[in-house]
């Protein structure tokens, strides 16, 4: 709003307000300066925000890590797999290790088992 178009009473009020600013108490001015510099100091580290955020949330993070370690340590462990005797695992161990088991024998055993089953079924009938 320009001074020319402004009514007299508004100009008077503004003049009084301006006078109040120019004759401001020096203690108030000092306090305002200190506040301003503090505000600027708060604004300054904003560029290193990720680091600041890490520092800010460090207590929360440490509590979370501690809680997760505690939770994991209390979780029931999976039952251990029974370890096979080493003699059964290694091909060259045991008395008959070098004798290969023929696949035909297994087929013949299966056939015999089937025949026996049929025979027992017939006997029941």
């Amino acid at each position, binding site marked *: *709003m320009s001074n020319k178009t*402004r*009514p007299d*009473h*508004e100009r*008077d*009020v*503004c003049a*009084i*307000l*301006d*006078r*109040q*600013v120019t004759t*401001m108490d020096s203690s*108030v*001015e000092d*306090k*305002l*300066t*200190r*506040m*301003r*510099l*503090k*505000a*600027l*100091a*708060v*604004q*300054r580290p*904003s560029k290193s925000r990720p680091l600041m955020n890490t520092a800010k949330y460090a207590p929360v993070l440490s509590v979370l890590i501690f809680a997760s370690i505690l939770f994991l340590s209390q979780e029931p462990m999976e039952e251990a797999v029974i370890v096979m005797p080493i003699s059964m695992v290694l091909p060259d161990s045991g008395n008959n290790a070098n004798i290969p088991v023929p696949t035909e024998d297994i087929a013949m055993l299966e056939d015999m088992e089937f025949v026996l089953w049929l025979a027992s079924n017939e006997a029941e009938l």
Partner: protein
Amino acid sequence: MDESSVNKPNEISLNVFLMAVEKKAYNMALISTGNREEALDIVQDAMFKFATHYADKATEQWKPLFYRIVQNLIMDWHRKQKVRRIMTFWREEDSTPEPWLASLNDCPETILCKHQKSNATLSILHELPVKQQQCFLLRAWEGLSVKETARAMNCSEGTIKTHFSRASAKLKQCIEAMNE
């Protein structure tokens, strides 16, 4: 901490901006609250909030944004005072008022008239409804446009015009009555 510690370009411009507005903002808060410490608290909060959240905005937006923070803090203060008055209705006000709110007859005789007029004008401003008062200060004293004032006070441009004309009329009436 001294002023020389402010060195980066953005900080320098922010420092200059805050230097330009801090005294007016303080006076606005002082007129509204009538208490020096409360006014300083409001300005401090406004500076911190502005520096923390809005310093990266375009510089032409700074003034309305800063005054919006100040206005919000002033309105919050009034709301809290209202609640406090309701909760402690049996207690007397214990804060000491600003000199211009106290008796107008205490001044030395030589400066009595000028001082009285200033004090009386500030008292009239203080007595205005908060929105009219702040609207007048932002428009007439700080020189914000209707649009900027509307943005700062978070209301429509029509409302700003109404508040301003009512405040101006009331001030005119009181000042004329005082001069008679």
